[in-house]
């Protein structure tokens, strides 16, 4: 229970940082994909321990941040329907859509409930049979299996007033898209929790086809420093590969049962990512067998063309092309109290993490 002390040992962390400095000879750009890594990097002040050769950029791994503005617009439109209640994770309610937020919709009397799990949303459906409960399904391979399990349960129990608006996504196509879009990433700090489900195989293409270093990292400071060491070593030795640092949680084969659930309920589809655009095969669509629980099929709506807030550079920040301080809105107009872009809403968003931990690199 208290093993995390080991992974925060100052002497050990400083020793690994020194080892990184020792082997690092050329400038490298490393991307941490997961928002959890972004927060840990900032919270522990890890960038201050690294040599100037190492540039860390944040990637598209915060589920709230990459949720496309059209999804928010759709959810708000759903909330305007009679007898519809939106059930959502808390972070999402403050994400600005084209014209409004779910929080504002709620303040205007629309029914928007915050839940901590899709199971809570299903409970709402059982509790209020006269109300249509729509769960906003966001997140990657980490959260999607829970949505799948809940959809299976809804089908087994024939719960007719429940559906999911799915914006679930999978990670590897986005990581590949960044490279094909020309972002000069040398190595990926790969997401730990996603990999618990997927295993390490999903990154093989990045290493083999694109020659990128890949290390699956845990979330403690010593994990992250050790992973950076492994990445730098791969790059310095011109030996890109997929390695697991987070061995206490991630097995190469992942969690087959969770993947089976995903397969059963979802199928791959093209998906829109904030900042990255439409990425083929990067989304998870609810299969036809479950279409009566698919909110987009159940409540087909015409949504006006979405529009991004003027000046917001979330898109570039999600691709590692800009740092928060380079956005004209950061800290001036866009703050955690009054977010303009999604990266400032979620605590795991790059802009929010930089703001909270006083880092303006």
């Amino acid at each position, binding site marked *: 229970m208290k093993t995390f002390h080991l992974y925060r040992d100052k002497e050990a*962390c400083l020793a690994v940082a020194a080892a990184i400095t020792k082997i690092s000879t050329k400038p490298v750009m490393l991307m941490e994909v997961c928002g959890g890594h972004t927060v840990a990097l900032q919270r*522990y002040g890890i960038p201050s321990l690294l040599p100037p050769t190492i540039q860390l950029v944040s990637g598209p791994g915060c589920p709230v941040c990459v949720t496309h503005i059209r999804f928010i617009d759709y959810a708000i439109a759903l909330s305007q329907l009679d007898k519809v209640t939106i059930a959502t994770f808390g972070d999402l309610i403050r994400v600005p859509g084209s014209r409004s937020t779910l929080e504002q919709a709620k303040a205007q009397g629309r029914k928007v409930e915050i839940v901590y799990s899709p199971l809570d949303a299903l409970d709402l459906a059982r509790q209020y049979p006269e109300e249509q409960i729509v769960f906003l399904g966001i997140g990657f391979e980490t959260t999607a299996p829970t949505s799948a399990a809940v959809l299976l349960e809804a089908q087994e129990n024939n719960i007719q007033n429940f559906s999911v608006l799915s914006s679930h996504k999978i990670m590897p196509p986005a990581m590949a898209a960044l490279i094909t879009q020309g972002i000069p990433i040398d190595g990926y700090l790969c997401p730990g929790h996603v990999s618990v489900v997927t295993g390490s195989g999903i990154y093989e293409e990045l290493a083999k086809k694109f020659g990128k270093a890949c290390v699956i990292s845990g979330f403690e400071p010593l994990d992250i420093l050790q992973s950076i060491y492994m990445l730098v070593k791969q790059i310095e030795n011109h030996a890109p590969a997929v390695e697991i640092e987070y061995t206490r949680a991630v097995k190469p084969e992942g969690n087959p049962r969770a993947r089976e659930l995903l397969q059963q309920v979802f199928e791959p589809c093209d998906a829109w990512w904030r900042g990255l655009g439409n990425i083929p095969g990067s989304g998870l669509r609810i299969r036809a067998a479950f279409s009566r629980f698919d909110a987009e099929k159940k409540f087909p709506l015409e949504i006006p063309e979405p529009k991004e807030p003027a000046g917001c550079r979330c898109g570039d920040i999600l691709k590692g092309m800009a740092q928060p301080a380079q956005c004209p809105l950061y800290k001036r107009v866009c703050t955690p109290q*009054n977010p303009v872009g999604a990266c400032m809403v979620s605590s795991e968003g790059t802009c929010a993490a930089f703001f909270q931990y006083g880092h303006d690199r």
Partner: protein
Amino acid sequence: MAMIANSNILLGHGSGGRLSQDLFTGLFARYFHNPVLDQRTDSAVLQLSGKHLAFTTDAYVVNPIFFPGASIGSLAICGTVNDLAVAGAVPLYISSAFILEEGLPYSDLEKITADMAEKAREAQVTIVAGDTKVVTKGACDKIFITTSGIGLLKPEHIPISTGQNIEIGDKILINGPIANHGMAILSKRYNLQLQTDVVSDCAPLNHLIAAVLQAGCEVHFMRDATRGGLATVLCECVEKKPFGMFIDEALIPVDDDVRYLCEMFGFDPFYMANEGKVVLVVKRAHAEQVLAVMQQNPLGRHSTIIGEITENPVGKVGLQTLIGGKRLLEMLAGDPLPRIC
């Protein structure tokens, strides 16, 4: 600024962090401003008939009303006693107003009242005035309490509340582990079944503080680290000042169980509420003596020196993290929300 854009009051306006500050400066200070209020101290320091008085008020709306280690009643007394004590005053008299929701069990009110009496005895203050209102069911949540308090202070302690004598080199101390109160409340609110009880640190700090002042140590500033946690107090201490602060995170005591719970919720102990913790800024040469005096008191047994006032970063708090990294410590920006994944 924030108020114009968000035209409704948000929960964050009461969290003790940045939004609360905006509300105070943008609204209350604008309408009420006067030389005393503009000092923005926990207690107002007033001169009446040749005596120096500290005067303060506080409202308590905690949910749940009973939690491990304390209740809304104990909080209402300790909070007000501590606001007076950190101004350098000896707390004397308390008034208390109750707003009760129709249907509140009488036995609950009695338990709360007994807790208040017990904490008042402990702090050696007298509850001398009060008022009660009952509102219809749903118009408030069980019970809200407002307490006000007055205390006397010696002329030489007047500068403590504004921190006007803080100088570079001063040492910063805290009287024990942080975040216990915030996590005790959360574990009760979410009904967590824990192997060990995380207990609120709710306690009157006036005797501990009096011991330090009576020892003749030069105290330049004190503040109790309540809502917004330790980070908020440290940031406020140097904000808009011509000096900064350096804090070593490794020196800040946090109980293992509390740290573990914080991890589970995704919270940072720096921002979690306390109800029995005081931050002291003391003359460098007196720091060890202050520490020794504090450690002799049961409420200060785990006191530590956590940092010092520095030239840089001006107006900011520099932090050395647990692993030796460097960053700035900022106030809590929004409302702490449990993470989703």
